């Protein structure tokens, strides 16, 4: 099938061989041609020597999720050759390094195999083992460029930007590109039937990963204290924050820093530091992943009960326990919503992509300070570590950020007496004071039983008074948090509901299903507790397919518990094998349910 700007290229290599930059170059060059792209990286949980894949979906119609097919497989890893060949869609192509012989027995009739002697060419043209390996990767970019008809000028420009000060590297890279490009043009019919063509689909967009976006968001939010313990896939969030801050928050003259990043000894300490800093009035945060959340849970409960703001980024990965650290999932929803023993519940935000990571990284601090409670931004590996094409981020300098109810020295001066946990405004949110501001503001923060006045108590009524007020605050949160996104028509009886990185696949699935005359309304939830509108959305439909990336229908569980909706209406569509969600899965599962007689 001949297509334009609708092709999926998957590259199989070995990690630690420098293929990442080659793959990035390939993706970027297509993006620079104005064509929307989706890039997904499937990498192992080790440092060097294991199979790794990169998948580029060229998607002229701008879909956001990974595809469910492979048109061109660049099979650079002998170890996974069989599996890679099997993965190619019928009618597709497989590119391999013909320097060495390959398993002919595995050949498929419906796949065209293209051999390019990449190693030989690079060995002949470059010196040194390391350079030869690197250049082999760049050479396959050249081959693919020829096969898809990617603009070589754009590649050149990209290389010039990357190696601004290193002209010789631009030259050697271009030489490798040329080797592949020319070989392909000489030996194969180029371009293939699936090819790319410059278009205007990317202006006003950038390509960025969610962790970088969140790190940038934290800087823009004015976060000053970041405490963390390294854990995949959240590590690059703090790396980004650090690199933006070292550029923009370091006095160029004195070298003095207006940010403080602490690599904690573990996650228990990281969250402790965040609480200490927030108690003192700094915007503080910690990025982590599942195991970190488990370790933080005692302190998260403390923050809920002592009412201390805290921003936590949970970049979710696959599985219980250590699981698959380099695969994606949305499986910490329940553990985050109810983290810690006792009656606790926590505000969650669900960004759908890097742009929302940037935005929610900022608003999370506002909510945390406004609500005086931990706010957990529920990202995942797919969003956090993959490159997404998203609209440009915006920042309005005139927006005054919400610092919540903090009493100033002047206000304290005028008060007769300050009581920490009084519901003065009826919204369940008390006033707080910061240490060092005014003598009248002092109080004793504690996770043990306390009264509305902030005094220690073991009295039943005084204790209950405070935990009951926290429920009032919860309802305030419900009104305060970002509203879900809806697409509703009057006629549809069924709806699709998802969160976060499920969005792309759901949007695409809706289009595909609509093409089959199955029309679904749509709701993308952005926060927990759920707004009234989410409940209404469910109430107004006969059936709602809840699409989420975990085994135990955790989002659906929260909907039952917090929105109090009818369980019979909520049909779980669960994807939890660690790969990012794709539209095909959603379409198939909806069709299955419809075939079983569910509403559509």
């Amino acid at each position, binding site marked *: 099938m001949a297509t334009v700007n609708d092709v999926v290229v998957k590259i199989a290599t070995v990690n630690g061989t420098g293929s990442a930059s080659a793959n990035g170059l390939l993706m970027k060059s297509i993006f620079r041609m104005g064509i929307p792209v989706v890039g997904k990286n499937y990498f192992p949980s080790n440092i060097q020597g294991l199979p790794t894949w990169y998948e580029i979906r060229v998607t002229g119609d701008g879909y956001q999720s990974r595809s469910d097919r492979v048109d061109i497989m660049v099979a650079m890893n002998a170890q996974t050759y069989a599996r890679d060949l099997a993965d190619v869609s019928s009618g597709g192509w497989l590119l391999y390094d013909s320097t060495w012989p390959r398993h002919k027995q595995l050949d498929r009739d419906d796949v065209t195999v293209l051999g390019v002697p990449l190693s030989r060419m690079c060995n002949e043209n470059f010196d040194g083992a390391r350079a030869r390996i690197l250049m082999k990767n760049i050479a396959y970019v050249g081959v693919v460029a020829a096969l898809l008809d990617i603009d070589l000028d754009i590649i050149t420009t990209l290389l010039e930007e990357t190696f601004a000060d290193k002209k010789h590297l631009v030259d050697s890279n271009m030489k490798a590109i040329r080797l592949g490009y020319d070989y392909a043009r000489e030996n194969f019919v180029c371009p293939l039937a699936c090819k790319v063509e410059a278009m205007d689909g990317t202006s006003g967009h950038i390509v960025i990963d969610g962790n970088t976006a969140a790190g940038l968001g934290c800087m823009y939010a004015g976060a000053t204290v970041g405490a963390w313990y390294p854990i995949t896939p959240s590590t690059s969030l703090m790396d980004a924050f650090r690199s933006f801050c070292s550029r923009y928050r370091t006095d160029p003259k004195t070298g003095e820093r207006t940010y403080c990043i602490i690599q904690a000894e573990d996650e228990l300490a990281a969250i402790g530091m965040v609480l200490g800093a927030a108690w003192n009035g700094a915007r503080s945060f910690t990025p982590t992943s599942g195991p970190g959340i488990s370790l933080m849970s005692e302190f998260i409960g403390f923050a809920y009960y002592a009412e201390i703001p805290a921003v936590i980024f949970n970049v979710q990965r696959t599985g219980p326990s250590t699981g698959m650290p380099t695969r994606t999932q949305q499986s910490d929803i329940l553990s985050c919503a109810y983290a810690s023993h006792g009656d606790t519940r926590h505000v969650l935000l669900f960004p759908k992509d890097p742009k929302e990571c940037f935005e929610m990284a900022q608003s999370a601090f506002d909510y945390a300070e406004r609500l005086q409670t931990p706010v957990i931004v529920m990202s995942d590996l797919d969003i956090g570590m993959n490159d997404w094409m998203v609209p*440009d981020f915006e920042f309005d300098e005139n927006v005054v950020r919400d610092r919540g109810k903090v009493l100033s020295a002047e206000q304290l001066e005028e008060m007769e007496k300050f009581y920490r946990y009084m519901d003065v405004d009826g919204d369940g949110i008390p006033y707080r004071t910061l240490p060092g501001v005014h003598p009248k503001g002092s109080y004793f923060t504690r996770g043990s039983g306390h009264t509305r006045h902030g005094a220690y108590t073991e009295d039943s009524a005084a204790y209950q008074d405070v935990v009951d007020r926290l429920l009032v605050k919860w309802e305030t949160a419900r009104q305060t948090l970002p509203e879900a996104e809806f697409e509703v028509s009057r006629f549809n009886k069924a709806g699709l509901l998802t969160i976060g990185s499920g969005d792309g696949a759901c949007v695409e699935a809706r289009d595909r299903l609509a093409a089959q005359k199955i029309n679904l309304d749509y709701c993308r939830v952005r926060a927990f507790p759920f707004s009234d509108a989410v409940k209404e959305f469910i109430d107004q439909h006969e059936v709602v397919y809840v699409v989420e990336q975990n085994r135990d229908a955790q989002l659906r569980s929260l909907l039952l518990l917090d929105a109090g909706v009818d369980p019979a209406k909520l049909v779980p569509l669960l994807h939890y094998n660690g790969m990012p969600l794709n539209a095909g899965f959603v379409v198939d599962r909806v069709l299955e349910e419809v075939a079983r007689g569910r509403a559509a």
Partner: protein
Amino acid sequence: MSYIGKPKVAHPKMPKNDLGLTARDYEGTVSTLCAGCGHDSVTAAIVQAVFELNIEPHMLAKMSGIGCSSKTPAYFVSGAHGFNSVHGRMPSVTTGANAANRSLMYIGVSGDGDSLSIGAGQFVHAIRRNLNMCYIIENNGVYGLTKGQFSASADIGSKPKKGEPNQQEPIDPVSTALSLGATYIARSFSGDKEQLVPLIQGALLHEGFSLVDVISPCVTFNDHEGSTKSYAHTRQFYHHVVDADFVPPAEEIKAAYAKGSAMPVELHDGSKIVLRKVDEQYDPTSRASAFKYLRERFNAGEITTGLLYMDESRQEMHDLMGNTRTPMCQLPLESLNPGAGELKKILNRYR
């Protein structure tokens, strides 16, 4: 835990400090600890120390974990903010608090259980960062609040009220801190206020991590015969090696030191600690020799006390990082981002 308010009537003739406050102004709510608990004496020493140092109450931050000892911040300086965190995690909270506001003075009160068992990791890492704080361990060899189990500081052979003597090697916070490079290390006894007060004062003013390990007997669970953390045992085997006097910036050192030589060490704010060597052999400036001495005395059954080690040369956490002197929490939010225009430029890197 305060069922009863404490009347705050100060006698008009009570001595006042430079801020015009009396010692009463540095008290807290009524203690709910057992009568005679060593921790209450440490509380009293802290009150005296901060009173004499002329610390504005609200510029002091009182940090703690969980335990009888960790309750005590409620019993001193009511005018200070306090943070009674979770068990064993005071160091991390203090680290974050200090990161956000370096202009406050931090006093952490912990127990041997809180610091040497559940909190051992955080204790170690606060030292490693040279966190600017005064860290007091009210060391009684037991878990008071959970009713008398041995803690990790219990000595081999120390007898419980009932049951068998402890057989496990004790963790000595002082040797551990020496091995980790803490920059101010002292040991004292709740029953020796004279020694304790200046040690706490020095610890408060030392820029960096200050450990004050205070033997503080638990009268209810660990003050019987055979207990090596009892009042009687401590008094008997107590051995001062280097005592310290604290001299405020303005004052000159004029006291005459009878025993041993006196060595003044200037602190960052211009005040001084005068080390008075009681034992001439002892060198409080060398980790290696301090460790050796301590072990030898330990083997001889002695409890070495005083200002055991001091190093004014190492930078504290913020300075190690090159952070601004303005407290992070006081930086105006608007000043912390490069604006919309710069954002555009940043985004261009991602095209």
